[in-house]
Every structure is written in C-alpha cells, then in structure tokens.
C-alpha cells in the first residue's frame, strides 16, 4: 500500500514537470499559442450554435428545456477542454512515436511506460477558451433554470465528469494501440475520434436503439450525458452503477491491452 502511494506521488511529480515543460515549449512560439486560442474560439462558437438553435426555436429536445440543453452543451465543452488538454495530443501521436521507435527511451525510464507515452504533453491553448466558455455556459443556464441541486447531485456531477474524461482516455486509446499490430491506422483512428461529436447534443435526440448502443456497446454517451443526467436526477441506479463501473472496467482492460501491445514493439524506426 505504501509502495503504491509512493509510486503515485512520484508520477504526480513527474506529471508536474511534464506540464511545466509543455507550457515552456508552447510559450516559446507565442504567436502560434495565440492563434491556437483564436482558432479554438471559432470551434467553441460552433458548439454553442447548437444551444443557440434550441433557444431560438424554444424547442423541448428529447423532453429537455432549452436551458437544460445549454447546460449539457456547457458540460460537453468542459469535457472537451479536459480531453484536448490532457489526452488528445498524446493519443494522436502514439502511432507516429511507435513507428519512429521513440519508445526505446521510454521503456528504460523508471516510470510507467503507458503513463509516459499517453500523458507527456499538456496542451494549453485549446482548453483555455473551452474552460472559460464551458463555465460561463453552465453558470448562465444554471442560474436561468434556478437549479436547486443538492450536495449529492453536484458531487455525482463532478465525479461523473472526471470518470467521463477517464472513459474517454481509455476509449480513444484503444484504436491507437492497434498501431502495434497494424502500420496504417490513421483512417480507423479518425473514424473513432469523430465519435466524440456524438456528445455534442443530449442522447435523448437519438432513438432508444441508438441510446442503448451508445451506453452499453460503444459507451460514448456515458461521457457527457451521465453527469448532466445525475444533476437533473434523471439517472437510474442501474445507469449510475454503469457510469461508475464502465470507466474502471475499460481502464483496466486498456491497461491489459497496453501490456500485451508493448510486447510487440520492435523499435522499428530506431
């Protein structure tokens, strides 16, 4: 137990260094950093457009009021900030790193190779507008609704956002790991990555069949829908249990898969 705790502290210290290095690296090219923020602002506008449309039509999409849909969009934006800030660049570069033989050095470092490979870069420019935009969107819709959420609901909301981000990490890591078996996986990765967009609107807009598919088979709806459903007390005990279990289940499965995959690494380009 003590050894595990020590390992966690060590990895947290290393992660702080990763974060610091990434910041220094990105601030070296300040114009790019600012352009990155501006570009992301335009993407943020497209996400907010969906909420804007629902408000303009005053439509009750899937039984949700326009303000509830806006709160959902805000949550999706926050999750996008977490995903793009911590995971996206790292996962996207895995196929390239494997092909180039960059894992050689990582394998001999006294930290987890999976941690090193999937957490070494922190992106700052993309999350900044998303965090600001997401918080404002949530705050505005929350106050418009006059939502009186209890401590349990808010705790469940925050927990499910964190577990949703963890689920996204595992879910989007799977196609990247196929690079240890298949050389060209760009197309597959692109298709899977685009599944992220299914979180841009509440799952209630889809039919029952698609909802079940997106919850149990390809659990992409769990990422952004479950936190908001917990906040509105729309999450049944069964779904809440699934929301807690599936990120852990997928994380440990991906951990196993990573260990199998790494054995196939042959330092091709090194």
């Amino acid at each position, binding site marked *: 137990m003590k050894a595990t705790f020590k390992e966690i502290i060590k990895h947290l210290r290393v992660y702080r260094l990763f974060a610091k290095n990434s910041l220094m690296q990105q601030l070296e090219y300040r114009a790019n950093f600012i352009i990155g923020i501006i*570009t992301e602002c*335009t993407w943020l506008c*497209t996400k907010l*457009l969906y909420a804007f449309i629902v408000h303009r039509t*005053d*439509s009750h999409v*899937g039984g949700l009021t326009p303000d509830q849909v806006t709160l959902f969009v805000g949550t999706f934006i926050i999750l996008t900030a977490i995903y793009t800030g911590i995971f996206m660049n790292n996962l996207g570069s895995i196929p390239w790193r494997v092909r180039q033989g960059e894992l050689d050095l990582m394998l001999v470092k006294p930290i987890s190779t999976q941690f090193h490979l999937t957490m070494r870069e922190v992106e700052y420019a993309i999350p900044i507008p998303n965090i600001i935009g997401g918080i404002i969107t949530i705050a505005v819709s929350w106050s418009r609704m006059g939502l009186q959420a209890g401590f349990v609901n808010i705790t469940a909301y925050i927990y499910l956002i964190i577990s949703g981000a963890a689920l996204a990490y595992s879910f989007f890591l799977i196609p990247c790991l196929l690079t240890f078996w298949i050389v060209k996986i760009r197309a597959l990765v692109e*298709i899977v990555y685009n599944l992220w967009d299914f979180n841009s609107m509440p799952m209630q807009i889809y039919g029952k069949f698609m909802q079940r598919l997106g919850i149990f088979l390809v659990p992409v709806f769990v990422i952004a829908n479950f936190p908001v459903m917990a906040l509105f007390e729309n999450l049944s005990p069964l779904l809440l249990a699934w929301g807690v279990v599936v990120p852990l289940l997928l994380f440990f499965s991906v951990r196993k898969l990573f260990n199998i995959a790494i054995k196939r690494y042959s330092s091709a380009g090194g």
Partner: protein
Amino acid sequence: MKIIKKYITVYTLAIQGAMEYKTDFLISLVSGGFTIIIQFFLWTAIYGGSAEAELFGYDYGQMVIYVVMAGIMGKYVSTWFEYEIMEDIMEGNLNRFFVQPIGHLGFRAFGFFGVKTLENSMVIIISAILLWVISSTAGVTFSLINLLILLLIAPFSLMISFMLSYCLSVANFWLTWGWGVFNGARVITTILSGGIFPLAVFGDRIASALMFLPFPYIVYFPLNVAVGNIAGLDILFGVSMQIMWIVILFIVSQIVWPIGMKRYIAARG
C-alpha cells in the same frame, strides 16, 4: 495548343494522384457522416418538440435536406492546397515557377480541379444514395429538378471556394506557420457559408447582411435552390453573384500574390 496541353497534363496527373488516396477520402466521408447523423437527429427532435411546422422558413423536409446536403457540400467544396502552399514557401519550392513555363494559379487550379473531379464524383454518388435513404426512411420528399439545378451551380461554389483559399494562401508569405490561421478561417467560412445551419437561423438582418459577402454563395445559395426556397429569376441572380465573386477574387489574387512574392526568400530552396 501547347499552353492548354501542359495544363491538361497537370489535371490528368492530379486525377491519377487522387486515385491513390481515394480510400482515405472515402473514410473521411464516413467520419464526416457522423455530423450529418447528429444534425438529422437534432432537427428531427427540434421539429418534434416544436409547435411550429415551419422554422426559419424551412419545413421539416427542407431542413433535413439542407443539413444533410450541407455536410456533403462541405466535402464538395473543401480545399487543402493552402497547406501545400505553406510548405512550398517554407521549403523554397516556389522557385520552380520562376523557371518552369507554367503559372502558379493555373498549376494550382488544374491540380485542384483534377483531384476534385474524382472526389466529387464519389460525393455525388454518395449524396444520391443518402437522399434515397432519407426519402425512403424519413418520408422526406425533394424535387429532382432542383437537385439537377444544384448539380449545375455547385461547380461555381467550388470555384469561389478555390479562389477564396488561393487568396488566403498569400498569408503564408507573412506567417511562418499558418496552420492555425487556415483552420480558423475554415471554421469561420463554414459557419458564414451556411455549412452547418442555414443562415436564416441568425435572423433576417444578419442573413441579409451576409449575402453581400462571397461565403453564402458557396453553400447557402445552392442549397436553398435545392430545397426550393430560391426559384426562377432569383436563381439567375444568385448565379450572377457567384460569377461576380469568382471574378472579384481572381482580381484580388492577381493583386495580393505579387505583393506576397516580394517577401519570398526561397528559404531552403
């Protein structure tokens, strides 16, 4: 005749090059298809949850056709060569245009339309399949004549998109790494051209003001023809506006490119 022959060669080579990457393009169409699915379900839910039968001047069938075709149209008019020009400037590859008897605009245009000939043939086939699926499953009807007119005016949209990107590419002479600028410009162009939602959702005033810009003539105008919201002489007016913007952007490109070329230092050439 010789002048035409060299550009035809560029065009043919571009088609051959595109054949190599046709799977990549088809896969990008599949992943882009997710947005279409989201839009389809979103608007079905919005119309289902609204008391009005018509929203922003579109009934349910028209809106579904619009948003589905907007996703397809986005692929039809998409450009990529601004990134190639960025590399050409960084690597000093523009040098060849000083000695080769071929103009840069002509080279880019014929190469672009060569690739697009193949890609857009696939886009048209997939659109036909998609429209058939929508009409048979969601009960949405559409006019074949309007779709034929769309097929005729879409090449003008493609030309506007090409000329816009070509003019924007000149920014590469001032920027070391214009990737972010092009991505931002792409999103803005998509929104302002009506590539995500019809411009009417922004309100009549904004939609009318935007009609003074080239963007709406890339997606919004042709798709409104497709859904039957623009008809008769208004189509002719719209096409005239398209041609006018192609000419204006061509003139702009002839002004800004020589200015940009003065900054070209053939860094690694």
